[in-house]
């Protein structure tokens, strides 16, 4: 009896096409007569638009049309969710521009070059207004208002958890103000869309090829926004060059592209440049966190008080809601915390709108907890590992509902930490650290630990799949998720191979086309395997059941006696000679006019909670502040593993992005709102030259919530690595008295901390939060945004 293919390292079936350049992305698609779109974008952060003069641009060779907002008359844009309806965004700016990069007009031309040249010929008369760039300052009473009608830059606010003094009864309270900085999403393929208007001969009036995580989401939002029947819209996502949360459905520019195509009755495409992507695609993170943790002398946690300022960017981008949603629901993390008080205030600022980036609100929660726990350990003179062990939730606690109301499915946090420490050789590392300190080495060692829990499949937990047995005996899978690098074609084919005994190379995979797949939630929030994977299981099981009935008829046996043979055929138990191939059974089904196929919508009763522990080892040059990541050990538990190769791939990519935030990446504006890091020379994205080979491991604690026992793995690496690396840098300098360094821990910041520590002039880690929190407890209506934020699935 051969073993199951599940749990084995199967090489990705997607890779040959990608590696040999056969894969098509939006820009590769041959679309005859396609026009090229270029946007005219605001060079100033905040201004009234007095006039838009398009006459010269319209007269230029190759230019077909130039549109400002009033020429297209499009309805307001709605992103994945609306944080505050009073901060509505017009797809092309009308009265005001609100960030550098805000689109004012669009060119449609016969060539890309002609479109770019024409964009420069559009003359926009801006009447500049003072901008609000920093989210804390934007919340001050005298800050320039982005939406005068709103009367404030506060887009949303809320209070949750305890109303009492949660720190009462503490022996020690540690306090920290932490910045979780704004970063760029930076998929390798920037935004891209091609729109073909008109009847396609198959009942569609509009065909959209778009680089997205959520093709059905794009179709639904277009239908909703433009009032078109959804069945007349066909949305296809071809190969997508990465998304990381930055492509969650319809973008404002997509709406413009559709508007132009329908207006002109001609196909159009918009392929974003890298520099454009860095001002136009929503940014991620962007929180200022005021964190207070009360403890007993022995390290036992008494209570946690959080006050968080979220940056929503312009137009209250939905990323601003992540503080209210995922950061809040994960505020208890992996610890027993008897009481939590949570307040958040979200500001609109004259910056690129905020959205999701890998982790989307959960890394921010893990980071603040892991930082404050390290501060407490330092204050109490307890080893950071012991501090965590004294406060971990225990395996017997699950399912566990936290004091902020989140129900964790399963976990064993200490086991993951123990595994990470064992693999790292924690005691030996500490010994080496002591030696280097005693010798006064130039390169000091820092050891950072993090333990985290996160939430996956957190939105409405349902997904579609179907399995069809084709006439050749192979199978076709259709799913409503939309893989763009995750390896679903491989993992879902493994499931069919396991359930139906059909070889993987005979399994076809269909996704990302709304005319081929009736419904779907797309790929985000690490939802795909647990929802779509289990839907494939359900559909395959229904197919098998029906196949057994068909086989029973053909073999004149009882369906209960039909079994699958080792070579993937159906036979009467104990009579292998009777075995029928899938081809034969499918033919019988076709003869009966009922193809051998089944659909299944898998619904999961609640989110799942992956967890893990990371250990980062850094060297710090105390002369220059340079930091080298020497080792990174990650133990990530995503429940039962279907394909360890895919899991390790997600760990490696996720870790790289978490390390990048800890050490290098930050999106910076000057005081006027000019982006200073809007290309890859200035934005600190690392390359392989910065990173060691990661040491990835797993524990496997299955979830009881789905048959595969699977949780998500897409974001864990980022969530675990970022605090571990930041903690490692600070740990390396703790002997000097350094207690905190904000991310990114650049050489200049690290050296400044060393210098200040030696001079006894370290800045305080805490300061009082801004007055906006005096009123968050009585904010009416904020709960709406918070509830919506619970359903975010990025």
């Amino acid at each position: 009896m051969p073993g199951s293919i599940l749990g084995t390292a199967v090489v990705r079936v997607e890779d040959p096409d990608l590696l040999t350049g056969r894969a098509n992305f939006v820009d590769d698609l041959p679309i005859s007569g396609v026009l090229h779109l270029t946007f005219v974008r605001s060079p100033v952060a905040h201004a009234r638009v007095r006039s838009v003069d398009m006459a010269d641009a319209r007269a230029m060779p190759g230019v077909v049309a130039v549109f400002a907002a009033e020429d297209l008359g499009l309805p307001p844009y709605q992103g994945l969710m609306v944080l505050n309806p009073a901060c509505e965004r017009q797809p092309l700016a009308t009265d005001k521009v609100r960030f550098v990069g805000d689109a004012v007009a669009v060119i449609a031309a016969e060539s890309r070059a002609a479109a770019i040249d024409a964009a420069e010929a559009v003359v926009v008369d801006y009447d500049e207004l003072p901008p609000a760039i920093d989210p804390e300052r934007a919340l001050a009473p005298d800050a320039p208002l982005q939406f005068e009608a709103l009367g404030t830059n506060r887009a949303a606010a809320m209070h949750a958890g305890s109303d009492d003094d949660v720190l009462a009864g503490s022996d020690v309270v540690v306090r920290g103000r932490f910045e979780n900085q704004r970063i760029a999403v930076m998929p390798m393929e920037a935004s891209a869309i091609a729109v073909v208007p008109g009847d396609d001969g198959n009942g569609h009036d509009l065909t959209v090829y778009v680089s997205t995580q959520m093709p059905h989401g794009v179709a639904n939002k277009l239908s909703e926004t433009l009032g078109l029947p959804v069945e007349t819209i066909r949305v296809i996502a071809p190969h997508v060059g990465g998304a990381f949360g930055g492509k969650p459905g319809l973008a404002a520019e997509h709406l413009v592209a559709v508007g132009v195509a329908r207006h002109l009755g001609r196909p159009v495409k918009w392929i974003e440049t890298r520099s454009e992507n860095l001002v136009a695609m929503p940014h991620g993170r962007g929180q200022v966190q005021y964190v207070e943790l009360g403890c007993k002398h022995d390290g036992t946690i008494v209570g946690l008080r959080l006050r968080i300022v979220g940056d929503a960017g312009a137009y209250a981008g939905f990323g601003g809601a992540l503080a209210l949603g995922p950061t809040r629901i994960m505020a208890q993390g992996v610890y027993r915390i008897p009481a939590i008080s949570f307040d958040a205030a979200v500001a609109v600022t004259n910056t690129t709108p905020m959205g999701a980036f890998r982790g989307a609100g959960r890394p921010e929660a893990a980071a603040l907890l892991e930082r404050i726990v390290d501060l407490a350990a330092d204050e109490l003179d307890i080893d950071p590992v012991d501090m965590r062990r004294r406060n971990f939730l225990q395996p017997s606690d699950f399912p566990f509902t936290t004091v902020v109301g989140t129900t964790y499915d399963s976990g064993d946090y200490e086991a993951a930490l123990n595994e990470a420490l064992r693999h790292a050789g924690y005691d030996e590392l500490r010994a080496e650290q002591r030696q280097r300190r005693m010798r006064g080495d130039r390169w000091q060692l820092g050891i950072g630990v993090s333990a985290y829990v996160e939430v996956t499949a957190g939105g409405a937990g349902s997904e579609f799949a179907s399995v069809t047995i084709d006439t050749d005996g192979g199978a076709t899978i259709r799913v409503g998720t939309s893989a763009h690098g995750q390896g679903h074609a491989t993992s879902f084919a493994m499931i069919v191979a396991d359930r139906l005994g059909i070889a993987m190379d005979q399994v076809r995979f269909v996704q990302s086309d709304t005319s081929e797949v009736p419904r779907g939630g797309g790929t985000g929030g690490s939802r795909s395997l647990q929802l779509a994977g289990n839907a494939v299981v359900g559909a395959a099981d229904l197919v098998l059941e029906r196949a057994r009935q068909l086989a029973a008829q053909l073999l004149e046996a009882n369906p209960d006696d039909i079994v699958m043979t080792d070579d993937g055929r159906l036979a009467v138990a104990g009579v292998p000679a009777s075995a029928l191939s899938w081809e034969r059974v499918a033919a019988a089904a076709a003869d009966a006019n009922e193809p051998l196929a089944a659909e299944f919508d898998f619904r999961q009763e609640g989110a799942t909670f992956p967890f893990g522990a990371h250990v980062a080892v850094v060297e710090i040059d105390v002369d220059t502040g340079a930091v080298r990541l020497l080792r990174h050990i990650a133990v990530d538990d995503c429940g039962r593993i279907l394909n360890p190769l895919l899991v390790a791939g997600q760990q490696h990519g996720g870790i790289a992005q978490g390390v990048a935030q800890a050490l290098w990446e930050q999106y910076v504006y000057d005081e006027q709102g000019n982006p200073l890091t809007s290309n890859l020379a200035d934005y600190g994205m690392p390359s392989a030259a910065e990173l060691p080979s990661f040491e990835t491991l797993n524990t496997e604690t299955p979830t009881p919530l789905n048959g595969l026992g699977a949780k998500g793995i897409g974001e864990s690496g980022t969530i675990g690595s970022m605090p571990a690396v930041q903690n490692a840098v600070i740990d390396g300098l703790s002997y000097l008295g350094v207690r905190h360094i904000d991310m990114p821990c650049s050489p200049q910041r690290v050296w400044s901390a060393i210098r200040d520590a030696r001079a006894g002039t370290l800045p305080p880690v805490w300061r009082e939060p801004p007055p906006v929190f005096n009123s968050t407890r009585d904010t009416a209506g904020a709960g709406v945004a918070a509830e919506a934020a619970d359903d975010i699935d990025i």
Partner: protein
Amino acid sequence: MAVLLPTTIDETLAALAATPAALVLAGGTDVMVDVNEGRRRPEHVVCLRRVETLRARSVENGTLVLGAATTYTELLEPEIAAVAPAITDAARTVGSPQIRNAGTIGGNLATASPAGDTLPVLLALGASVEIDGPAGRRRIALQDFLVGPKRSALEPGDLMIAVRIPIRRGPQEYLKVGTRNAMVIAVASLALVVDLDARTVGIGLGSVGPTAFLAAAAAEWLTPRLVWADDRVSLPQAADAATFAGLVAAAAQPIDDHRSTARYRTHAIEVMASRALRRAVQFGAPHRAAT
């Protein structure tokens, strides 16, 4: 926009004489960024890619002569590393392989950015620039060529022909601080070149002033404190190293920007000066030659 594709230096000079405002395009790694960002809209472009003689490399009487269109990748070749190792070190830190295949030493000099990676090295080596143009063929010492931030002594109609680099026997160091290891613009950089024959030291600094420049006062202070032998140089008073590093740092005139602060840049220069000196020079009393 007209693009001219000359194949010889004479053709290039003629093209430039006819359109003195033309943009000279070599590797394009700086120019195309400006064009893409709309900072330059050239009417005429003179492209040097086909002028083979601008890529000639030779050694003439102890001077390495590099055609202005020599690429960074070519600077990595062993013949150059053997005679001017710091140039190779600097070229290795430029961009990515694609950038190094395109970008040229002449472009680096003509752009005259204070962060240009080869500039501190060429200054420390005492390089000069050979120019042809309306004023005739001439040589300008590099420190006189770099007249301001992103401004060089090239006049309209001028073409940089070659960079002339004295071959110096002795240790050479190039150090660079940036925000990451690869593909990074220098936050601060320093080159230190020892000439055992001339018994001189050259120190070039980058990203800490309006141009790359020589820390001449620090070099003058250091030279008499060194003890010279045929094959090495020593600094008898190790404490002098700190004073030297302080003098180099004092020469820096950095600014705050989004890449770093002036204070950090000054500190980084001091650390690099100290490290470069320690690598190039033996500290303590000179060893007596074995008998």
